[in-house]
Each structure stands twice: as structure tokens, then as C-alpha cells.
């Protein structure tokens, strides 16, 4: 959420252009995508805003939405989670196996799934913080370990989900599916967690600048571990939802969805910096919605499925290019192409002194208000 950081960044950064909140840019992009999509859909004689179509879009949002919400927390802490597709698959299998078609087993199965995911997330977090392994490699490794377990123990779909649990994926309130409502509730909880809890604020601080965060008296390991645990748990929720939709558990459901890279793309599409420290849950939800609308429009227009990937790739890059052109001075100079170093034509010297100060200052101001509680 940009609410705690925006006031601090404003006096430091010297920008003449009017500042746009990153969530607002995502919203504008989403509206633009919807308008273009509606025109395209209308051109083939279909109604974009029909109840069925909206229901399709919202359904398409829910699974990726769960994964991307967790991924947002991890990326805010300047880490990554590439193990999510395997956690999704594992969750769907555990859920379907434990339920075994009996409604009485639902609570046990859900608890077991969440506990397993929490353990995986804890392992990820500990490897990242204690063993000092880069998040990219650590979660790639744990993902491979889970993949090895899945490939060795499951030959195909397994288990049986009772009808009562399948209702979660099948019913809806009007045009809004229950699964999307659940996803939005989780998003609300995530946004509240980031904006109103100490750990949530610490995540911004640690992701923005770990050194400054530590010197401000934050235990830097804890927010990262919690972010990884929460990310695995939301991936497990996505797995539960997929199990409820499919009626069985599947060892390939996560990898087929490509949830690792797509969730990262959705998070970045939602205006969160890949290098951590800035971003918001609602931006991520907007990014997921953009994906869902683009996919839906292509489905309605019966675009060749291979060409869909081409369009997806172009949309991701183009959308992020639009954001970054407005967010130059928000990025830490050492990371990525946003540094003043690679921008001789646009800002010869103007943004450089302020750029390093901005994230450090905002990170510090995030934490100073609460550091006495932490100490």
C-alpha cells in the first residue's frame, strides 16, 4: 500500500510531472483494457458485459488471484517464490486424498493442507533468511524437491472431493462466483495486514532497504519468513479451490497453470516493484484482472491458443513499460534499468541525488513510528 510511503517520498523526489499513485495507474490500465476489450468483443457481435461473460472473467481471476496475493507479500520483501505451482498441486492432492469423498473430512483436510503449506513456506523463509540463499534459487530448489515428491508418488489424478466442497468452486452470488468473493476477502485481509499491522509495515521496510531496516531496530528475518509462509498458504488456498473445481487432486494442475511466472507477472503488472519495498495488494488484484480480461477477450474472439501467448507476452511487457516510465525515481538506483545511470537522455543528473534517498527515507519513516513497539 502506498499510503504509508507516499507522504515521505513526496518532499524528497523532485518531480514536475503530476504524481500518480501506482494503484491508480493499474486501475486506469484496467479500465483501458476493459474498454478496448469491450469494443473488440462487440466487433464480433458479443456482449462483453453480459452476466455470463463477467462470471467467466471473475472465475478466471480467482485462482491466479490467490497465488498473486501471496506472491505480492514475498516480492514486497525483495524475495521471490517460484515454488507456488508445486505447492498448488500438492495442496490439491492432499485435500482430495484426505477428503476421500466424505464431507465429514473437509475440516481435517483443509487444516492439513494449510499446515503443510505453512511448513513449506517456513522452510522457504528459513532458507532465504538463515542460509542466505537468494529467494530465486531457494524457492526454485524447494519447488524441485516438491516436484520430485509429486512425480514419485502420484501417477495421475488422485482422491475424491465431496460435492459439498465442490460447491465452493461451482456456485456464486448473482454473476459473482463464491471463489472470487473468497479471493477478494483474502485480498482485503492482506491489504489490512500490510497497512495496519507491525509485521506488514516491516515488510515494506525490509524490502525497501534491509540495512536501514535493521539499523532501525527491525528483526529483518521475521517479515521475510512470514511473507513466505503466507505466500505458501495462499498458494494452498488456490490448490484447494482447484481441487474443488476439478473434483480430484492433480499433480500437474499447478505447473499447467504456470502460476510461478504468471503470478510474478501479475504482481509486477499491479505496480509492485520487483526489487521490493513498494507495491500494493489492490494493484496486484488489478493486474490479475487485466490478465483475466485479456484472456477472456481472446477466448471470445477465438484467437489461436498459441497466438494467445504472444499477446500475453506483449501485454505484460507493454503494461509494465507504461508503469515504469512513471515510476522512475521510485526505484533504487543500483537495481535494474531504472537507475539514472542508464538514462542519459531523460534525466541528466537531475534525479540522481534524490533517487537513493527516496527508498531509504520512506523505509525509515515506515518504521520509526513503530520502532518503539518493536524494541
Amino acid at each position, binding site marked *: 500500500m502506498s499510503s504509508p510511503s507516499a507522504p515521505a517520498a513526496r518532499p524528497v523526489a523532485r518531480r514536475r510531472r503530476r504524481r500518480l499513485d501506482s494503484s491508480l495507474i493499474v486501475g486506469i490500465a484496467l479500465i483501458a483494457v476493459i474498454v478496448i476489450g469491450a469494443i473488440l468483443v462487440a466487433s464480433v457481435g458479443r456482449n462483453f458485459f453480459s452476466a455470463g461473460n463477467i462470471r467467466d472473467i471473475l472465475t478466471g481471476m480467482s485462482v491466479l488471484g490467490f497465488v498473486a496475493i501471496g506472491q505480492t507479500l514475498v516480492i514486497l520483501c525483495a524475495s521471490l517464490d517460484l515454488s507456488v505451482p508445486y505447492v498448488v498441486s500438492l495442496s490439491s492432492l492432499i485435500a482430495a486424498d484426505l477428503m476421500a469423498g466424505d464431507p465429514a473430512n473437509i475440516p481435517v483436510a483443509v487444516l492439513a493442507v494449510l499446515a503443510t503449506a505453512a511448513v513449506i513456506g517456513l522452510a522457504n523463509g528459513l*532458507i532465504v533468511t538463515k542460509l542466505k540463499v537468494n529467494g530465486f534459487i531457494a524457492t526454485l530448489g524447494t519447488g524441485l524437491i516438491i516436484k520430485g515428491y509429486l512425480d514419485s508418488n502420484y501417477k495421475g489424478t488422485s482422491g475424491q472431493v465431496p460435492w459439498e466442497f465442490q460447491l465452493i468452486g461451482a456456485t456464486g452470488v448473482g454473476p459473482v462466483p463464491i471463489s472470487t468473493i473468497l479471493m477478494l476477502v483474502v485480498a482485503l485481509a492482506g491489504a489490512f495486514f500490510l497497512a495496519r499491522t507491525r509485521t506488514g509495515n516491516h515488510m515494506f521496510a525490509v524490502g525497501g532497504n534491509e540495512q536501514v531496516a535493521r539499523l532501525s531496530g527491525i528483526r529483518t528475518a521475521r517479515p521475510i519468513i512470514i511473507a513466505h509462509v503466507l505466500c505458501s498458504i495462499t498458494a494452498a488456498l488456490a490448490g484447494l479451490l482447484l481441487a474443488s473445481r476439478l473434483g480430484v487432486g492433480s499433480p500437474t494442475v499447478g505447473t499447467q497453470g504456470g502460476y510461478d511466472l504468471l503470478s510474478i*507477472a501479475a504482481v*509486477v503488472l499491479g505496480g509492485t516493484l520487483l526489487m521490493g519495498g513498494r507495491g500494493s495488494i489492490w494493484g496486484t488484484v488489478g493486474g490479475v484482472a487485466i490478465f483475466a480480461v485479456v484472456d477472456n477477450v481472446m477466448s471470445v474472439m477465438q484467437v489461436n491458443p498459441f497466438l494467445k501467448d504472444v499477446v*500475453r507476452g506483449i501485454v*505484460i511487457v507493454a503494461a509494465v513499460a507504461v508503469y*515504469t516510465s512513471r515510476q522512475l525515481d521510485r526505484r533504487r538506483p543500483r537495481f535494474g*534499468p531504472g537507475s539514472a*545511470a*542508464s*538514462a542519459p537522455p531523460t534525466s541528466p543528473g537531475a534525479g540522481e541525488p534524490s533517487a537513493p534517498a527516496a527508498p531509504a527515507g520512506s523505509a525509515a519513516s515506515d518504521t520509526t513510528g513503530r520502532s518503539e513497539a518493536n524494541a
Partner: protein
Amino acid sequence: MTATTATKPSLPNRLAGLGRTLVSPRGAVFLLLIVLLVMIAVLNPSFAEPGQFIRFVQRVAPVAIVAIGQYFVIVGGEFDLSMGSVVTAQVVIAGNLIGQDDAKILPVTVFMFVFGALVGLVNGLIVSFLRVPSFIVTLGMMLALLGGVLYWTGGAATGNPADSFREIGRGGIRDLPVIDILPWSVVVLAIVLGLAVWFARRPFGRTIIALGDNATTVRYAGARNWWVKTSTFVISSLSATVAGILLVGYAGVHPSVGRGYEFTAITAVVLGGVVLGGGRGWVVAAAAGAFALEALFTLLNFAGVPSTYRDAVQGVIIILAVAYAATTVRARRRGRALETPAANSPADQTPPGSDPAAQTSPAPPVAKEPDPDSVSARPAPIPSTQRADNETKGGS
């Protein structure tokens, strides 16, 4: 193994130092590789025969070449996730455009290199001028390229190219005395590795490493950052093209031939002790990382481990290897941070890496840093800012 011998002419001093620093992160991958090869040779003595071993090198060649390309991108501070798709695209292009016509081999090969360079150029220019994170740019390129190739072929790749073209990947110089056959793949790998080592030691290659370490400094030093960064992507796409040419001979045309190559390459590079985020690493170690990874798979094969557990073991190994390197590199960097102003050596392989403990221990710990991992002496401002940079880089 070949990695070390190939560089021998140009780097005798480094090889001598390597023996001493095999336990340091720089040398750890070579130690790992030797251990793995010895274990394979124990399990299956015929592996140590020159003919068998050269076959192993031939099998590793495409992965090692991709890893060499990925090394330049990673050491420059970026990612290239599009390499697997470039490999696939080149394989499919070769299969579809060359067909059985020998006369088309040369023009199509030229076209493939131009296409590879173009992909890299697009990646690099978008990263440099539109300021999109490379992770996203190359992810988009990966989706778009693979989708485009599959759309072009209708989802099913057709026909292998002419046999004389495939000869590059599967043939070789025959009837040699000791090794019986010297595959062209091995020759290509040796050339690529030699070029990479030479290039990395040129001023331009050093600028790439400096760019990954601190882009602002490089700009103040007068380099054209956008061109340096773009060239790393061009290099990686070109290396993926070479790997594609080898693979089309070795494995044939298939739309999934390059799948997962980007992650394999990144794993190999990281296994070679190259720091994600840029600025640290050696290209030969990156190639050795590819060899170690493939040796690990071979070992699991010979040891009778079910192939489904290969991934799990790979996951454990890369976490452990990087954890080992990360903890040691930290200690080493701390040592170097104290040493650099005095030593003032542009080539950073000599003294500080060998014995971190001896350098950090005499200085008293600083009280204001509670984390036990970072307790080290830091005289005042300059080294502390330097360390701040290094530490954040590790978390990126």
C-alpha cells in the same frame, strides 16, 4: 574438467591459485565437479575411458554454452528467461527452413544468428530504454517467442533439417587415436568458452562485471551503459542460437526441446558461484556449473535413483551449494572490503579470497550491528556503504 584444461594456455596463474582455493566459493564448483566425476567413475569405471568421457562432454555442451551466455547477463545484473524459447525457436527454424536442401544451410544459419541477435537486441533495448525489469521483459519474450513458434508450426514441428546440418550436433572428427571421435559439439564448446574467457578479460567484458556491481559508477566512468547492457542480452541470445544448432543435431526438432533451459542455465551459473544481482563471478566457473549439474544427473542415473527423484536431489544440491557459497562469500567480501583500498588490484582473485577468517578476526566487532552474521570490523563510512550494497544485492 574440460573447462579447466581449455583455459590452461591463457590462465596458468589462475589454475595454480585454483588448487589452493578449491574450498572457496570460486573453487567450490570445481571441487564439486571433481567429486561427482570421481563418484561416477567409481560406480561405472567405463565412464573414465576417454571415449565415454568425451561423449559426456558432448552431452553437456549445449547446456554449458547456454550457461556461458546466461553468465554475461547475470553478471551484468539482469536475468534472461527467454533463452529456452530462443533455443526452441532456432531448432524449429532450422527444421522448417533448411529442410533437406543442403544449399540452404549457410543462408539459414546466417538468418538464425541474425534472428538471435535481434531477439537479444529487443530484450536489451526494452530493458535499457523502457526500464522494464529484465525478469519481465524476458518472461514476455519467452511467452511471445514460444507462442509465435508454435503458431507458425501449428503446434507440431515438422521434419528434421538436412543431415549435413545435423552433423554439427551429432558428428565429429572420426578415427582419432585415443578418444576415437572428437564431436563437433566439444569443439564448438571449446571455441565458445575460449571466446568467452577472452571476452570477459577484455575491457568490455570487465565493464559488464562493473555494470552488474554498480551501474552508477560505470556511467561516471564513461561507459555507455545501455550498449553494455544490451550487448549482454545479444550475447545470451547468440549463445542460445549456438546451443540450438547443436541440439537440432543431437536431439532433433521438437517444440519442447528448449523447455526449462533458462532455469537450468541460471542454476548452472549460480552453482558456479556467480552472484545473482551481478558483479561477481567467473565465466569458467559458470560453465563448470553446467558440467556439475549434468554430472549430478549422470551420477543419479548410474546410482539407480528413480528419475522422478532427480528433481528433488537437484533442488537439495542447488540450495546447499548456494547456501555454502553465500555464507562464505559474505565472509570473503567482508575481508575484501577491508583489503581493497590498500590492495588496489583490479583483478580480484588473488589474496583476499583465500583466507577470510584471518582477515576479519583481528578487528573488533562493531556493537551497532546485532546480527551475528555481519559482526565484523568496519572502520567508518566508506566500507559500511560498500557492505550495504553487497548485502542488499544478495537479497534481490
